[in-house]
Protein backbone atom coordinates (compact mmCIF):
# COMPACT_ATOMS: atom_id res chain seq x y z
CA UNK A 1 0.00 0.00 0.00
CA UNK A 2 1.61 3.25 -1.10
CA UNK A 3 2.41 6.03 1.34
CA UNK A 4 2.30 9.63 0.19
CA UNK A 5 3.75 12.51 2.18
CA UNK A 6 2.53 15.94 1.19
CA UNK A 7 4.61 18.88 2.44
CA UNK A 8 5.09 17.39 5.88
CA UNK A 9 6.75 19.63 8.48
CA UNK A 10 7.46 18.95 12.11
CA UNK A 11 8.51 21.43 14.76
CA UNK A 12 9.62 20.25 18.22
CA UNK A 13 8.50 22.46 21.09
CA UNK A 14 6.40 24.74 18.95
CA UNK A 15 5.47 28.11 20.48
CA UNK A 16 8.39 28.00 22.92
CA UNK A 17 11.75 29.70 22.90
CA UNK A 18 13.41 26.35 22.12
CA UNK A 19 11.44 25.48 18.97
CA UNK A 20 13.43 23.29 16.57
CA UNK A 21 12.32 22.52 13.04
CA UNK A 22 13.01 18.84 12.44
CA UNK A 23 11.21 18.45 9.11
CA UNK A 24 10.66 21.07 6.45
CA UNK A 25 8.14 20.52 3.64
CA UNK A 26 8.97 16.89 2.99
CA UNK A 27 7.06 15.46 0.04
CA UNK A 28 7.63 11.81 -0.90
CA UNK A 29 5.89 8.97 -2.64
CA UNK A 30 6.66 5.48 -1.37
CA UNK A 31 5.22 2.95 -3.82
CA UNK A 32 4.72 -0.76 -3.10
CA UNK A 33 7.63 -3.12 -3.07
CA UNK A 34 10.51 -0.67 -3.20
CA UNK A 35 13.73 -1.10 -1.25
CA UNK A 36 14.61 2.38 -0.08
CA UNK A 37 17.61 3.73 1.79
CA UNK A 38 16.96 6.81 3.93
CA UNK A 39 20.25 8.49 4.64
CA UNK A 40 21.23 11.53 6.62
CA UNK A 41 23.64 12.84 9.19
CA UNK A 42 22.71 12.73 12.90
CA UNK A 43 19.96 15.27 13.47
CA UNK A 44 18.95 15.45 9.81
CA UNK A 45 15.38 14.46 10.70
CA UNK A 46 15.38 10.89 9.40
CA UNK A 47 14.18 9.32 12.65
CA UNK A 48 11.51 12.00 12.98
CA UNK A 49 10.40 11.29 9.43
CA UNK A 50 9.96 7.55 9.93
CA UNK A 51 7.92 8.09 13.08
CA UNK A 52 5.44 10.02 10.98
CA UNK A 53 4.95 7.07 8.65
CA UNK A 54 3.06 5.02 11.24
CA UNK A 55 1.39 7.89 13.03
CA UNK A 56 3.55 7.88 16.18
CA UNK A 57 4.24 11.55 15.57
CA UNK A 58 1.80 14.04 14.21
CA UNK A 59 2.91 16.42 11.49
CA UNK A 60 2.85 20.08 12.51
CA UNK A 61 1.68 20.87 8.99
CA UNK A 62 1.12 18.88 5.82
CA UNK A 63 -0.57 15.51 5.47
CA UNK A 64 0.30 11.85 5.09
CA UNK A 65 -1.79 9.43 3.06
CA UNK A 66 -1.72 5.68 3.54
CA UNK A 67 -3.44 3.85 0.71
CA UNK A 68 -5.18 7.09 -0.23
CA UNK A 69 -6.49 7.86 3.25
CA UNK A 70 -5.36 10.77 5.40
CA UNK A 71 -3.88 9.20 8.55
CA UNK A 72 -4.70 12.22 10.69
CA UNK A 73 -8.35 12.17 9.69
CA UNK A 74 -10.81 11.50 12.49
CA UNK A 75 -11.73 7.86 12.85
CA UNK A 76 -8.66 6.61 11.02
CA UNK A 77 -7.58 3.30 12.53
CA UNK A 78 -4.07 3.99 13.87
CA UNK A 79 -3.73 0.44 15.14
CA UNK A 80 -4.31 -0.88 11.65
CA UNK A 81 -1.76 1.60 10.31
CA UNK A 82 0.86 0.51 12.85
CA UNK A 83 0.36 -3.13 11.96
CA UNK A 84 0.69 -2.35 8.24
CA UNK A 85 3.68 -0.04 8.63
CA UNK A 86 6.06 -1.97 10.91
CA UNK A 87 8.62 0.30 12.55
CA UNK A 88 11.75 -1.18 14.09
CA UNK A 89 13.43 1.42 16.29
CA UNK A 90 17.11 1.97 16.90
CA UNK A 91 18.44 -0.58 19.39
CA UNK A 92 15.15 -2.49 19.22
CA UNK A 93 16.46 -5.09 21.68
CA UNK A 94 15.79 -2.54 24.44
CA UNK A 95 12.06 -3.07 24.01
CA UNK A 96 12.10 -6.80 24.89
CA UNK A 97 10.26 -7.60 28.09
CA UNK A 98 8.75 -11.08 28.10
CA UNK A 99 10.09 -14.12 29.90
CA UNK A 100 10.85 -16.02 26.71
CA UNK A 101 11.61 -15.15 23.11
CA UNK A 102 8.47 -16.66 21.66
CA UNK A 103 6.14 -14.80 24.04
CA UNK A 104 7.83 -11.52 23.20
CA UNK A 105 7.32 -12.00 19.48
CA UNK A 106 3.67 -12.84 20.20
CA UNK A 107 3.11 -9.41 21.77
CA UNK A 108 2.49 -7.59 18.48
CA UNK A 109 0.01 -9.98 16.85
CA UNK A 110 -1.73 -10.50 20.21
CA UNK A 111 -2.44 -6.77 20.34
CA UNK A 112 -4.14 -7.09 16.97
CA UNK A 113 -6.76 -9.29 18.60
CA UNK A 114 -6.03 -12.42 16.56
CA UNK A 115 -6.79 -15.94 17.71
CA UNK A 116 -4.18 -17.72 19.80
CA UNK A 117 -3.43 -20.15 17.01
CA UNK A 118 -2.92 -17.38 14.45
CA UNK A 119 -0.74 -15.42 16.90
CA UNK A 120 1.55 -18.38 17.49
CA UNK A 121 1.71 -19.24 13.81
CA UNK A 122 2.74 -15.71 12.95
CA UNK A 123 5.33 -15.60 15.73
CA UNK A 124 6.82 -18.87 14.51
CA UNK A 125 6.93 -17.64 10.91
CA UNK A 126 8.51 -14.34 11.93
CA UNK A 127 11.22 -16.05 13.98
CA UNK A 128 11.94 -18.33 11.02
CA UNK A 129 12.09 -15.31 8.70
CA UNK A 130 14.80 -13.66 10.77
CA UNK A 131 16.69 -16.93 10.87
CA UNK A 132 16.62 -17.66 14.59
CA UNK A 133 17.12 -21.31 15.49
CA UNK A 134 14.36 -23.22 17.30
CA UNK A 135 16.65 -23.90 20.26
CA UNK A 136 16.41 -20.25 21.31
CA UNK A 137 12.62 -19.95 21.15
CA UNK A 138 11.96 -20.62 24.82
CA UNK A 139 15.00 -18.98 26.30
CA UNK A 140 14.92 -15.66 28.07
CA UNK A 141 15.56 -12.91 25.51
CA UNK A 142 18.05 -11.39 27.95
CA UNK A 143 20.35 -14.39 27.67
CA UNK A 144 20.85 -13.98 23.93
CA UNK A 145 23.71 -12.22 22.19
CA UNK A 146 23.30 -8.67 20.86
CA UNK A 147 22.70 -9.76 17.28
CA UNK A 148 20.22 -12.44 18.30
CA UNK A 149 18.28 -10.02 20.50
CA UNK A 150 18.01 -7.67 17.58
CA UNK A 151 16.62 -10.45 15.38
CA UNK A 152 14.02 -11.27 18.01
CA UNK A 153 13.01 -7.60 18.17
CA UNK A 154 12.73 -7.40 14.38
CA UNK A 155 10.67 -10.61 14.43
CA UNK A 156 8.40 -8.91 16.98
CA UNK A 157 7.48 -6.36 14.33
CA UNK A 158 7.41 -8.83 11.43
CA UNK A 159 4.90 -10.98 13.29
CA UNK A 160 2.28 -8.32 12.63
CA UNK A 161 2.75 -9.01 8.91
CA UNK A 162 3.44 -5.42 7.91
CA UNK A 163 3.33 -4.40 4.27
CA UNK A 164 5.93 -1.71 4.81
CA UNK A 165 8.91 -2.42 7.06
CA UNK A 166 10.89 0.55 8.35
CA UNK A 167 14.19 -0.15 10.10
CA UNK A 168 15.88 2.70 11.96
CA UNK A 169 19.64 2.05 11.96
CA UNK A 170 19.28 -1.73 12.25
CA UNK A 171 23.06 -2.20 12.32
CA UNK A 172 23.94 0.33 15.05
CA UNK A 173 26.29 -1.17 17.61
CA UNK A 174 26.83 -4.49 15.83
CA UNK A 175 30.21 -5.87 14.76
CA UNK A 176 30.93 -6.17 11.01
CA UNK A 177 29.82 -9.79 10.93
CA UNK A 178 26.58 -9.11 12.78
CA UNK A 179 25.97 -6.11 10.54
CA UNK A 180 26.36 -8.11 7.33
CA UNK A 181 24.17 -10.89 8.69
CA UNK A 182 21.35 -8.55 9.59
CA UNK A 183 21.51 -6.67 6.28
CA UNK A 184 21.64 -9.90 4.24
CA UNK A 185 18.71 -11.20 6.23
CA UNK A 186 16.70 -8.06 5.52
CA UNK A 187 17.51 -8.24 1.84
CA UNK A 188 16.45 -11.89 1.74
CA UNK A 189 13.27 -11.00 3.61
CA UNK A 190 12.53 -8.35 1.03
CA UNK A 191 12.90 -10.85 -1.79
CA UNK A 192 10.80 -13.52 -0.08
CA UNK A 193 7.90 -11.36 1.05
CA UNK A 194 7.98 -8.56 -1.54
CA UNK A 195 7.18 -5.95 1.07
CA UNK A 196 8.34 -2.36 0.95
CA UNK A 197 11.48 -1.88 3.03
CA UNK A 198 12.88 1.44 4.20
CA UNK A 199 16.36 1.23 5.65
CA UNK A 200 17.46 4.22 7.71
CA UNK A 201 21.21 4.62 8.03
CA UNK A 202 24.05 7.09 8.00
CA UNK A 203 26.43 4.69 6.29
CA UNK A 204 26.39 4.67 2.50
CA UNK A 205 28.41 1.46 2.40
CA UNK A 206 25.65 -0.36 4.30
CA UNK A 207 22.93 0.85 2.05
CA UNK A 208 24.47 1.00 -1.44
CA UNK A 209 24.69 -2.77 -1.75
CA UNK A 210 21.01 -3.42 -1.19
CA UNK A 211 18.66 -0.59 -2.05
CA UNK A 212 17.22 0.57 -5.35
CA UNK A 213 16.45 4.12 -4.28
CA UNK A 214 18.21 6.51 -1.91
CA UNK A 215 16.65 9.46 -0.14
CA UNK A 216 19.21 11.85 1.34
CA UNK A 217 18.01 14.07 4.17
CA UNK A 218 19.77 17.23 5.26
CA UNK A 219 18.59 19.66 7.93
CA UNK A 220 15.03 18.38 7.76
CA UNK A 221 14.50 18.45 4.02
CA UNK A 222 15.03 15.98 1.19
CA UNK A 223 18.28 16.78 -0.62
CA UNK A 224 18.42 13.94 -3.15
CA UNK A 225 15.92 11.25 -4.05
CA UNK A 226 17.19 9.00 -6.79
CA UNK A 227 18.86 5.72 -7.76
CA UNK A 228 22.06 5.07 -5.78
CA UNK A 229 24.57 5.80 -8.54
CA UNK A 230 22.80 9.06 -9.43
CA UNK A 231 22.97 10.11 -5.78
CA UNK A 232 26.65 9.17 -5.50
CA UNK A 233 27.50 11.40 -8.44
CA UNK A 234 27.08 14.24 -5.95
CA UNK A 235 29.75 12.84 -3.66
CA UNK A 236 31.26 16.27 -3.07
CA UNK A 237 27.97 17.71 -1.87
CA UNK A 238 27.44 14.60 0.24
CA UNK A 239 30.78 15.19 1.93
CA UNK A 240 29.78 18.73 2.74
CA UNK A 241 26.80 17.50 4.75
CA UNK A 242 28.91 14.97 6.62
CA UNK A 243 28.13 11.93 4.50
CA UNK A 244 30.22 10.12 1.92
CA UNK A 245 29.80 7.94 -1.13
CA UNK A 246 30.77 4.25 -0.73
CA UNK A 247 34.52 3.71 -0.64
CA UNK A 248 34.57 1.88 -3.98
CA UNK A 249 33.16 4.98 -5.68
CA UNK A 250 36.25 6.89 -4.55
CA UNK A 251 38.57 4.19 -5.83
CA UNK A 252 36.90 4.22 -9.22
CA UNK A 253 37.06 8.01 -9.33
CA UNK A 254 40.77 7.91 -8.49
CA UNK A 255 41.37 5.35 -11.21
CA UNK A 256 39.58 7.63 -13.66
CA UNK A 257 41.64 10.60 -12.56
CA UNK A 258 44.80 8.62 -13.20
CA UNK A 259 43.77 8.08 -16.78
CA UNK A 260 42.20 4.63 -16.58
CA UNK A 261 39.15 4.28 -18.75
CA UNK A 262 36.71 2.87 -16.16
CA UNK A 263 33.17 3.97 -15.37
CA UNK A 264 32.67 5.54 -11.94
CA UNK A 265 29.13 4.24 -11.60
CA UNK A 266 29.99 1.19 -9.53
CA UNK A 267 28.51 1.45 -6.04
CA UNK A 268 29.36 -1.97 -4.68
CA UNK A 269 32.55 -3.96 -4.52
CA UNK A 270 31.11 -6.64 -6.87
CA UNK A 271 30.26 -4.10 -9.55
CA UNK A 272 33.66 -2.44 -9.23
CA UNK A 273 35.32 -5.83 -9.59
CA UNK A 274 33.41 -6.51 -12.79
CA UNK A 275 34.25 -3.08 -14.14
CA UNK A 276 37.96 -3.50 -13.50
CA UNK A 277 37.90 -7.02 -14.94
CA UNK A 278 36.23 -5.78 -18.09
CA UNK A 279 38.83 -3.03 -18.31
CA UNK A 280 41.57 -5.67 -18.23
CA UNK A 281 39.69 -7.66 -20.87
CA UNK A 282 39.48 -4.58 -23.08
CA UNK A 283 43.17 -3.90 -22.51
CA UNK A 284 44.26 -7.40 -23.51
CA UNK A 285 41.90 -7.27 -26.52
CA UNK A 286 43.61 -4.06 -27.63
CA UNK A 287 46.99 -5.68 -26.95
CA UNK A 288 46.12 -8.69 -29.09
CA UNK A 289 44.79 -6.41 -31.82
CA UNK A 290 48.13 -4.71 -31.91
Amino acid at each position, binding site marked *: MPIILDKVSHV*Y*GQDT*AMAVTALKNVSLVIPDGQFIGLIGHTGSGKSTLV*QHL*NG*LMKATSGSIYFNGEDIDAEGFDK*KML*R*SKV*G*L*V*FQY*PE*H*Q*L*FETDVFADVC*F*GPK*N*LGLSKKEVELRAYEALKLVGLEDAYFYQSP*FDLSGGQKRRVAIA*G*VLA*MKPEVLVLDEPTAGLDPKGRDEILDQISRLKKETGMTVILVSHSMDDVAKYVERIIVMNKGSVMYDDAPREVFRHYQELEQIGLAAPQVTYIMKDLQDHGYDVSDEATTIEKAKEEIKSWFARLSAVGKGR
Partner: protein
Amino acid sequence: MLRDITLGQYYQADSVIHKLDPRVKLGTTIIFIISLFVFQGAWGYAVAALFLALVIKLSKVPFQFMVKGMKAIVFLLLITVIFNLFLTPGEPLVTVWKLTITKEGLRMAVFLSIRLGFLIIGSSVMTLTTTPNQLTDGLEKMLKPLNKIKVPVHEIAMMMSIALRFIPILMEETDKIMKAQLARCADFESGNLIKKAKSLVPLLVPLFISAFRRANDLAMAMEARCYRGGDNRTKMKPLHYEKRDYIAYAIVACYVILGIAAGKLMPLLVSGIIQLV
Protein backbone atom coordinates in the same frame (compact mmCIF):
# COMPACT_ATOMS: atom_id res chain seq x y z
CA MET B 1 5.33 13.59 25.13
CA LEU B 2 7.10 13.99 28.44
CA ARG B 3 9.43 16.73 27.34
CA ASP B 4 7.13 19.54 28.43
CA ILE B 5 7.72 19.24 32.17
CA THR B 6 9.63 22.32 33.31
CA LEU B 7 9.64 21.82 37.07
CA GLY B 8 13.26 21.62 38.18
CA GLN B 9 14.63 22.81 34.84
CA TYR B 10 17.59 25.17 34.41
CA TYR B 11 17.23 28.33 32.34
CA GLN B 12 20.50 29.69 31.00
CA ALA B 13 20.88 33.45 31.39
CA ASP B 14 23.50 35.97 32.46
CA SER B 15 22.20 37.57 35.64
CA VAL B 16 23.24 38.43 39.18
CA ILE B 17 20.98 35.72 40.53
CA HIS B 18 22.62 33.10 38.30
CA LYS B 19 26.06 34.15 39.54
CA LEU B 20 25.19 33.97 43.23
CA ASP B 21 26.72 31.22 45.32
CA PRO B 22 24.32 28.25 45.39
CA ARG B 23 24.47 28.30 49.21
CA VAL B 24 23.01 31.79 49.18
CA LYS B 25 20.22 30.70 46.89
CA LEU B 26 19.47 27.57 48.90
CA GLY B 27 19.47 29.49 52.16
CA THR B 28 17.35 32.27 50.74
CA THR B 29 14.81 29.83 49.35
CA ILE B 30 14.46 28.12 52.73
CA ILE B 31 14.16 31.46 54.51
CA PHE B 32 11.65 32.64 51.95
CA ILE B 33 9.50 29.55 52.39
CA ILE B 34 9.59 29.88 56.19
CA SER B 35 8.82 33.57 55.92
CA LEU B 36 5.67 32.78 53.97
CA PHE B 37 4.35 30.96 57.02
CA VAL B 38 5.65 33.42 59.61
CA PHE B 39 4.45 36.63 58.00
CA GLN B 40 0.96 37.60 58.95
CA GLY B 41 -1.74 39.49 57.15
CA ALA B 42 -1.88 41.14 53.80
CA TRP B 43 1.04 43.48 54.51
CA GLY B 44 3.46 40.65 55.12
CA TYR B 45 2.45 39.05 51.84
CA ALA B 46 2.81 42.37 50.06
CA VAL B 47 6.45 42.50 51.20
CA ALA B 48 6.97 38.87 50.10
CA ALA B 49 5.44 39.64 46.69
CA LEU B 50 7.68 42.65 46.30
CA PHE B 51 10.76 40.62 47.21
CA LEU B 52 9.79 37.83 44.81
CA ALA B 53 9.13 40.30 41.99
CA LEU B 54 12.53 41.90 42.56
CA VAL B 55 14.32 38.52 42.42
CA ILE B 56 12.44 37.46 39.27
CA LYS B 57 13.26 40.77 37.61
CA LEU B 58 16.94 40.38 38.48
CA SER B 59 17.07 36.75 37.33
CA LYS B 60 16.18 37.63 33.71
CA VAL B 61 14.12 34.44 33.44
CA PRO B 62 10.85 35.01 31.55
CA PHE B 63 7.95 35.01 33.98
CA GLN B 64 6.00 32.51 31.83
CA PHE B 65 8.59 29.85 32.72
CA MET B 66 7.70 30.05 36.38
CA VAL B 67 4.01 29.98 35.66
CA LYS B 68 4.59 26.79 33.68
CA GLY B 69 5.85 25.14 36.86
CA MET B 70 2.60 26.20 38.49
CA LYS B 71 0.59 24.12 36.03
CA ALA B 72 1.74 20.96 37.79
CA ILE B 73 0.12 22.01 41.06
CA VAL B 74 -3.06 23.63 39.76
CA PHE B 75 -5.05 20.58 40.80
CA LEU B 76 -3.57 20.52 44.31
CA LEU B 77 -4.19 24.25 44.64
CA LEU B 78 -7.79 23.85 43.56
CA ILE B 79 -8.50 21.12 46.11
CA THR B 80 -6.90 23.15 48.91
CA VAL B 81 -8.90 26.22 48.02
CA ILE B 82 -12.20 24.33 47.78
CA PHE B 83 -11.73 22.51 51.10
CA ASN B 84 -10.75 25.67 52.92
CA LEU B 85 -13.51 27.64 51.35
CA PHE B 86 -16.30 25.31 52.42
CA LEU B 87 -15.05 23.53 55.50
CA THR B 88 -13.69 26.34 57.68
CA PRO B 89 -16.14 27.10 60.47
CA GLY B 90 -16.98 30.74 61.13
CA GLU B 91 -19.18 33.61 60.09
CA PRO B 92 -21.30 32.50 57.09
CA LEU B 93 -21.03 34.63 53.96
CA VAL B 94 -22.92 32.77 51.22
CA THR B 95 -24.89 29.55 51.47
CA VAL B 96 -25.45 27.39 48.43
CA TRP B 97 -27.53 24.27 49.08
CA LYS B 98 -25.70 22.62 52.04
CA LEU B 99 -22.37 24.31 51.43
CA THR B 100 -21.48 27.46 53.28
CA ILE B 101 -18.70 29.82 52.46
CA THR B 102 -17.47 31.55 55.59
CA LYS B 103 -15.54 34.75 55.95
CA GLU B 104 -12.69 32.88 57.65
CA GLY B 105 -12.78 30.22 54.94
CA LEU B 106 -12.43 32.82 52.24
CA ARG B 107 -9.53 34.40 54.08
CA MET B 108 -7.82 31.06 54.56
CA ALA B 109 -8.34 30.05 50.93
CA VAL B 110 -6.86 33.28 49.61
CA PHE B 111 -3.85 33.18 51.93
CA LEU B 112 -3.19 29.50 51.29
CA SER B 113 -3.24 29.88 47.54
CA ILE B 114 -0.90 32.87 47.84
CA ARG B 115 1.41 30.85 50.06
CA LEU B 116 1.43 27.82 47.79
CA GLY B 117 1.84 29.91 44.65
CA PHE B 118 4.73 31.91 46.11
CA LEU B 119 6.30 28.73 47.42
CA ILE B 120 6.32 27.10 44.00
CA ILE B 121 7.45 30.23 42.16
CA GLY B 122 10.12 30.92 44.77
CA SER B 123 11.61 27.46 44.56
CA SER B 124 11.40 27.39 40.77
CA VAL B 125 13.41 30.64 40.72
CA MET B 126 16.12 28.70 42.51
CA THR B 127 16.05 25.67 40.19
CA LEU B 128 15.77 27.82 37.08
CA THR B 129 18.85 29.83 37.98
CA THR B 130 21.01 27.07 39.48
CA THR B 131 22.33 24.01 37.70
CA PRO B 132 21.73 20.72 39.53
CA ASN B 133 25.48 20.35 39.98
CA GLN B 134 25.83 23.74 41.65
CA LEU B 135 22.87 22.92 43.82
CA THR B 136 24.31 19.69 45.14
CA ASP B 137 27.72 21.34 45.56
CA GLY B 138 26.09 24.02 47.67
CA LEU B 139 24.16 21.47 49.68
CA GLU B 140 27.29 19.45 50.30
CA LYS B 141 29.20 22.42 51.61
CA MET B 142 26.29 23.59 53.76
CA LEU B 143 25.93 20.18 55.38
CA LYS B 144 29.67 19.63 55.79
CA PRO B 145 29.55 20.05 59.60
CA LEU B 146 27.35 16.95 59.78
CA ASN B 147 30.40 14.96 58.69
CA LYS B 148 31.55 15.19 62.33
CA ILE B 149 28.63 13.05 63.44
CA LYS B 150 29.36 10.49 60.72
CA VAL B 151 26.75 11.58 58.19
CA PRO B 152 28.10 10.68 54.72
CA VAL B 153 27.45 14.14 53.31
CA HIS B 154 29.52 13.76 50.16
CA GLU B 155 27.89 10.45 49.27
CA ILE B 156 24.43 11.86 49.77
CA ALA B 157 25.26 14.86 47.58
CA MET B 158 26.71 12.57 44.93
CA MET B 159 23.62 10.39 44.93
CA MET B 160 21.45 13.48 44.62
CA SER B 161 23.33 14.86 41.67
CA ILE B 162 23.29 11.50 39.89
CA ALA B 163 19.58 11.12 40.53
CA LEU B 164 18.91 14.61 39.20
CA ARG B 165 21.07 13.98 36.17
CA PHE B 166 19.18 10.80 35.36
CA ILE B 167 15.69 12.25 35.42
CA PRO B 168 15.77 13.64 31.86
CA ILE B 169 17.59 10.55 30.56
CA LEU B 170 15.03 8.17 32.00
CA MET B 171 12.23 10.36 30.75
CA GLU B 172 13.61 10.21 27.24
CA GLU B 173 14.04 6.46 27.62
CA THR B 174 10.40 6.06 28.71
CA ASP B 175 9.31 8.01 25.68
CA LYS B 176 11.39 5.80 23.40
CA ILE B 177 10.18 2.49 24.84
CA MET B 178 6.60 3.71 24.84
CA LYS B 179 6.88 4.50 21.14
CA ALA B 180 8.53 1.17 20.39
CA GLN B 181 5.67 -0.69 22.07
CA LEU B 182 3.08 1.54 20.43
CA ALA B 183 4.65 0.54 17.11
CA ARG B 184 3.77 -3.03 18.11
CA CYS B 185 0.17 -1.90 18.60
CA ALA B 186 0.39 -1.77 22.39
CA ASP B 187 -2.55 -0.04 24.04
CA PHE B 188 -1.80 2.08 27.12
CA GLU B 189 -5.08 3.92 27.33
CA SER B 190 -8.21 1.81 27.09
CA GLY B 191 -9.60 -0.78 29.50
CA ASN B 192 -10.25 -0.82 33.24
CA LEU B 193 -7.71 -0.15 35.97
CA ILE B 194 -6.34 -3.71 36.14
CA LYS B 195 -5.98 -3.89 32.37
CA LYS B 196 -4.26 -0.52 32.32
CA ALA B 197 -1.83 -1.58 35.04
CA LYS B 198 -1.09 -4.77 33.12
CA SER B 199 -0.45 -2.80 29.95
CA LEU B 200 2.37 -0.98 31.73
CA VAL B 201 4.45 -4.16 32.05
CA PRO B 202 5.88 -3.87 28.51
CA LEU B 203 6.92 -0.34 29.43
CA LEU B 204 8.24 -0.86 32.96
CA VAL B 205 10.30 -4.02 32.43
CA PRO B 206 12.51 -2.51 29.68
CA LEU B 207 12.70 0.75 31.63
CA PHE B 208 13.99 -0.96 34.77
CA ILE B 209 16.43 -3.02 32.77
CA SER B 210 17.79 0.06 31.08
CA ALA B 211 18.03 1.94 34.40
CA PHE B 212 20.04 -0.91 35.90
CA ARG B 213 22.23 -1.10 32.81
CA ARG B 214 22.93 2.62 32.98
CA ALA B 215 23.65 2.47 36.69
CA ASN B 216 26.03 -0.41 36.11
CA ASP B 217 27.82 1.43 33.28
CA LEU B 218 28.14 4.56 35.38
CA ALA B 219 29.52 2.65 38.36
CA MET B 220 32.09 0.99 36.10
CA ALA B 221 33.11 4.30 34.57
CA MET B 222 33.51 5.83 38.04
CA GLU B 223 35.57 2.92 39.31
CA ALA B 224 37.72 3.01 36.19
CA ARG B 225 38.62 6.56 37.18
CA CYS B 226 39.39 5.51 40.74
CA TYR B 227 36.52 7.39 42.29
CA ARG B 228 36.30 6.84 46.02
CA GLY B 229 34.08 9.06 48.08
CA GLY B 230 34.65 12.34 49.79
CA ASP B 231 37.88 12.21 51.85
CA ASN B 232 40.30 14.92 50.74
CA ARG B 233 38.54 15.23 47.43
CA THR B 234 39.01 18.64 45.82
CA LYS B 235 36.53 20.44 43.63
CA MET B 236 36.93 21.64 40.08
CA LYS B 237 35.00 24.77 40.94
CA PRO B 238 35.37 25.40 44.69
CA LEU B 239 32.69 27.57 46.26
CA HIS B 240 33.80 30.92 47.67
CA TYR B 241 31.67 33.69 49.04
CA GLU B 242 32.10 36.97 47.22
CA LYS B 243 30.97 40.49 47.85
CA ARG B 244 27.68 40.02 46.01
CA ASP B 245 26.88 37.00 48.21
CA TYR B 246 27.26 39.04 51.40
CA ILE B 247 25.11 41.77 49.89
CA ALA B 248 22.48 39.15 49.04
CA TYR B 249 22.47 37.89 52.65
CA ALA B 250 22.06 41.47 53.87
CA ILE B 251 19.10 42.00 51.52
CA VAL B 252 17.47 38.79 52.73
CA ALA B 253 17.91 39.88 56.37
CA CYS B 254 16.32 43.24 55.54
CA TYR B 255 13.47 41.40 53.83
CA VAL B 256 12.73 39.25 56.88
CA ILE B 257 12.80 42.21 59.28
CA LEU B 258 10.69 44.31 56.95
CA GLY B 259 8.19 41.49 56.45
CA ILE B 260 7.71 40.86 60.18
CA ALA B 261 7.56 44.55 60.92
CA ALA B 262 5.04 45.14 58.15
CA GLY B 263 2.83 42.31 59.42
CA LYS B 264 2.90 43.63 63.01
CA LEU B 265 3.10 47.41 62.60
CA MET B 266 1.10 48.25 59.50
CA PRO B 267 -2.29 47.15 60.94
CA LEU B 268 -1.54 49.24 64.06
CA LEU B 269 -0.52 52.17 61.91
CA VAL B 270 -3.62 51.89 59.75
CA SER B 271 -5.97 51.64 62.75
CA GLY B 272 -4.12 54.54 64.34
CA ILE B 273 -4.67 56.67 61.25
CA ILE B 274 -8.33 55.66 61.17
CA GLN B 275 -8.74 56.64 64.83
CA LEU B 276 -7.05 59.97 64.24
CA VAL B 277 -9.29 60.71 61.29
